[in-house]
């Protein structure tokens, strides 16, 4: 593969910009030409994924590249490191699956032009968050991600959607505001050395650093749905299912999680974070979010809301691993970050299929769905097992390394928390599955049709990927290893 410096720059720019370019292209195509629009959407989503892959692979191979642009006292720069590469990979890859699913799910809905163009814009913003080379650039794409996903949240055009959209904007802009203050304080302490040259704040000594960290965590915690700041996430479930699946289970919330990890490892650095006692306090916050999220999820009857709260819980798995400041913990966090979205998206996809085909969104009324939609429910079952962290599925490895990390750090209670959360997760989903196959009602619907195929294919593919990576974790391990080496090597 050619790794010349120019080629790398081109990959980086194309990976970042194909989403935005596609969004513009889709915006310009008349609404009636659906087939052409879908082709272009897929094309640009694919090109974003391919170039992100190329960039990520070159980063893993140790060949980074950097694009910078100075304006005034600020510099905007793209400079992917392994952590960003992992996030960029996940986001851009899953975007393709969600795009295909959207073709099926959105087939008969209105406002598709706006939907697809902003869907692609958000891809660019997410990739930008991943590849950002310094704090200001991260902040730029972070804000753009909020803005680009806003039209998707209010897509249904109902008053409820509008209210959810406003909530979404308010929460995320407030969080971004906290981040902005923190960034400016960081710049005052340390200038702008970028992420790749070691921790930004290394060598800075100030009593304010603790508060700075709190501000960062609170700011990114809003998007990462850390427990008291998570309220926008269930509200945003009014969005169409692909949006919920991709953005609110993966891309947007991952941007928050990614930001937290970025701050802990790239801004403060392991040493400073250790001194500030991150590993003593914050894992408890994460652990309590894990348990509280999943317990609240148990009480939800609307399937998407249950999934949303369960997302809140699972995101904190990643944070827990990162907060341990142990190599194994970080590796676990990365494995969790890579493997978990496959399963979560499958769950959302299946929930969307059920809602589309039967019109049911409440778990209590889903009896007998499994008999009519056997394949869908099979995929759902597999994903549900994945949520509990069973072996043949890839999520096991994430949990395994997380436990290893917490035990290695002498923090065995977290291993117990993880185990308990697995059990509660089982309690969350197994009854759904059982009821779906045993229930007495038989809703009238079929598992057929073109849009059904478009919706089911991505879900099935995700399950297959999860199975394969579960059996051969070596496929995804290099990513986790690269990140761990980068920060601990």
């Amino acid at each position, binding site marked *: 593969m050619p790794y010349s410096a120019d080629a790398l720059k081109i990959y980086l720019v194309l990976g970042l910009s194909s989403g935005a370019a596609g969004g513009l292209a889709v915006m310009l195509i008349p609404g009636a030409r659906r087939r052409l629009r879908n082709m272009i959407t897929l094309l640009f989503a694919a090109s974003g994924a391919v170039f992100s892959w190329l960039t990520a692979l070159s980063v893993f191979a140790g060949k980074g590249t950097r694009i910078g642009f100075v*304006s*005034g*006292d*600020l510099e905007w720069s793209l400079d992917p490191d392994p952590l960003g590469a992992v996030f960029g990979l996940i986001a851009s890859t899953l975007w393709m699956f969600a795009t295909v699913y959207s073709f099926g799910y959105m087939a008969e809905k209105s406002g598709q032009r*706006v939907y697809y163009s902003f869907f692609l814009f958000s891809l660019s913003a997410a990739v930008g968050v991943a590849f950002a080379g310094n704090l*200001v650039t991260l*902040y*730029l794409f972070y*804000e*753009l991600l909020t*803005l680009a996903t*806003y*039209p998707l949240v*209010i897509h249904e*055009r109902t008053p409820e959607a*509008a209210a959810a*959209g*406003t909530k979404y*904007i*308010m929460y995320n*802009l*407030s969080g971004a*505001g*906290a981040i*902005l*203050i923190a960034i*400016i*304080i960081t*710049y*005052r302490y340390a200038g702008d050395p970028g992420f790749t040259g070691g921790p930004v704040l290394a060598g800075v000594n100030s009593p304010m650093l603790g508060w700075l960290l709190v501000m960062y965590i609170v700011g990114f915690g809003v998007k990462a749905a850390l427990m008291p700041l998570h309220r926008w996430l269930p509200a945003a479930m009014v969005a169409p299912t692909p949006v919920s699946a991709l953005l609110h289970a993966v891309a947007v919330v991952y941007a928050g999680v990614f930001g937290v990890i970025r701050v802990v490892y790239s801004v403060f650095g392991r040493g400073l974070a250790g001194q500030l006692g991150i590993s003593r306090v914050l894992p408890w916050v994460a652990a309590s979010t894990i348990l509280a999220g999943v317990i609240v999820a148990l009480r939800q009857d609307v399937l998407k809301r249950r999934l949303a709260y369960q997302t809140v819980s699972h995101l904190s798995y990643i944070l827990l691993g990162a907060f341990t400041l142990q190599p194994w913990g970080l590796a676990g966090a990365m494995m969790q970050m890579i493997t978990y979205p496959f399963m979560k998206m499958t769950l959302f996809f299946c929930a969307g299929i059920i809602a589309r085909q039967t019109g049911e969104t409440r778990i209590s009324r889903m009896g007998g769905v499994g008999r009519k939609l056997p394949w869908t429910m099979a995929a759902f079952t597999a994903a549900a097992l994945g949520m509990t962290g069973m072996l043949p599925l890839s999520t096991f490895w994430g949990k395994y390394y997380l436990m290893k990390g917490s035990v290695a750090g002498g923090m065995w209670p977290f291993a117990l928390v993880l185990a308990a959360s697995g059990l509660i997760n089982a309690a969350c989903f197994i009854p759904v599955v059982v009821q779906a196959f045993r229930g007495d009602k038989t809703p009238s619907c079929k598992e057929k049709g073109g849009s059904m195929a478009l919706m089911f294919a991505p879900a099935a593919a995700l399950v297959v990927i999860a199975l394969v990576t579960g059996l051969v974790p070596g496929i995804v391990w290099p990513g986790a290893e690269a990140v761990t080496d980068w920060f601990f090597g």
Partner: protein
Amino acid sequence: MTAVIADNLPAFVIIVPLFAGVVLPVFARRQRLVEGLVVLAEAAGLAGVGFLAYIVFTHRGTDWVYQMGGWPAPWGIELTVNSLAVFFLFAVMAVSLPIALFTMGNLKDEVGSNKRTARFYTLFLLLVGSLAGMALANDLFNTYVLVEVATLSCCGLVSSRGTPRAAEAAFTYLVLATLASSLVVIGIGFIYVTTGHLNMGFASQGLAQAWQDRPHVVWLAISFVLVGFGLKSALFPLHVWLPDAHSSAPSPASAVLSGLAVKGYMICLLKFLYVVFGPALMKEFSVDRILVLAGMAAIICGAVMALPQDDLKRRLAFSTVSQVGYIYLGFGLMDENGLAGALFYLASHAAIKSTLFLSAGAMIASAGKKKISEMAGIGRKMPLTAAAFTAASLGLIGIPMFSGFIGKWYLIAGSLDTGDFLPTVIIIAGSVLCAAYLFPVIRAMWFETPQKAKQESTVQQECKTAVQHAAEHMPAGPGVPREVRVKDPGAAQKLALILLTAVIFVLGVVPGPFIELARSAAAELLMLR
């Protein structure tokens, strides 16, 4: 000829718009010529400012003092060309040129016949000229006279709409603005009595010696000047006149009032406080604390008052109250970063608020509706206008790559410099609230479908019957009501909106030279140099 202009450039920048304004009514019947002259005068002003900026940049550190009529300082009137003046002149010219462009061929709907538009243009140019004068003037009484020119032309612009509502708003504005002028003139009187000078530099020296003997006089002078200019520039508890005046004026007038006129008074106040009284006296009388407190109150209260407004222009007017708070906050920080941020924010807000008012005006004019709830789906029909509105909104909220972000960045940096954390939080809270009152507009424009086909159809029917009626009873001609078509305005308007949006982007993406200019202005004001 060029040499004469180059030597008298500071006066030239003031005189050209004023003279063009005075000449305009002569050509009142020839619409094209009038419009051409206005744009020409603006362009000449902008070119002059560009040259002034070049001079300031090449002779850094020394002010160009221009003596009007050739009389030296304490006897005659002085103009000072320094970074602050050039910065504000740039803002004035770069924003008023697109506004003038926007008005081309577009004013009759809101103002009236050819003659009336010519008068409107005259008032507009007089306002621009007086603002340019405020930037340069280095004489207390001269500043007062310029402020009066600006006040009268502002009130005239508000009243030019011709509606009783506008006349009422103009009267309130005139009364309060004149009260403010009286406060200012009495403040100037106190300064004159204690120092015997009207030149800002000499008065400042005099005050530095005299204030300890006469603390109450200086205190009274400061507070009169502060309240006077605060009233004119709608500092929070004194903003009562602004929403009515700015929302009932014709849209281009709203743009220039909200975008520039308010800023002119702020620059005057800035010069009075920093140049005449000086940073030391400001600290002594804790003017800085008052400015910061009032600014914070303005940010929050203005935004909260903007939230429930359904009339689009009123919402924008209240937003001005809130945004003015940011600038005052920066003025009060007494810090290089904060002051530079405030100046940058001032320029940025001038461009942004003008864009907002102009695009809102275009939408109101073509849709015939002025409530936000009635604007549903207008973005599809007027994409460029709505896009300009959206870009400006994002700038106002402070999204990176737009000008507002840079201003907020330096404001936050400045308030962190002073070690006070509360203003920082208020700045952020203000931009979140700003999103709260602007996002519903954006949502309505782009993402909502026009409501209630039924109402629409009855209106259409009424129109139809009216047209039929007219056709039956009248020969076809200009009297027949034209068909209402909602679409983007004409080429000149589009160009104006594009130019203003470009200014917002340029300030946001390459703020380098502008922030440098603002910073050197701040350093001058704080006497760091």
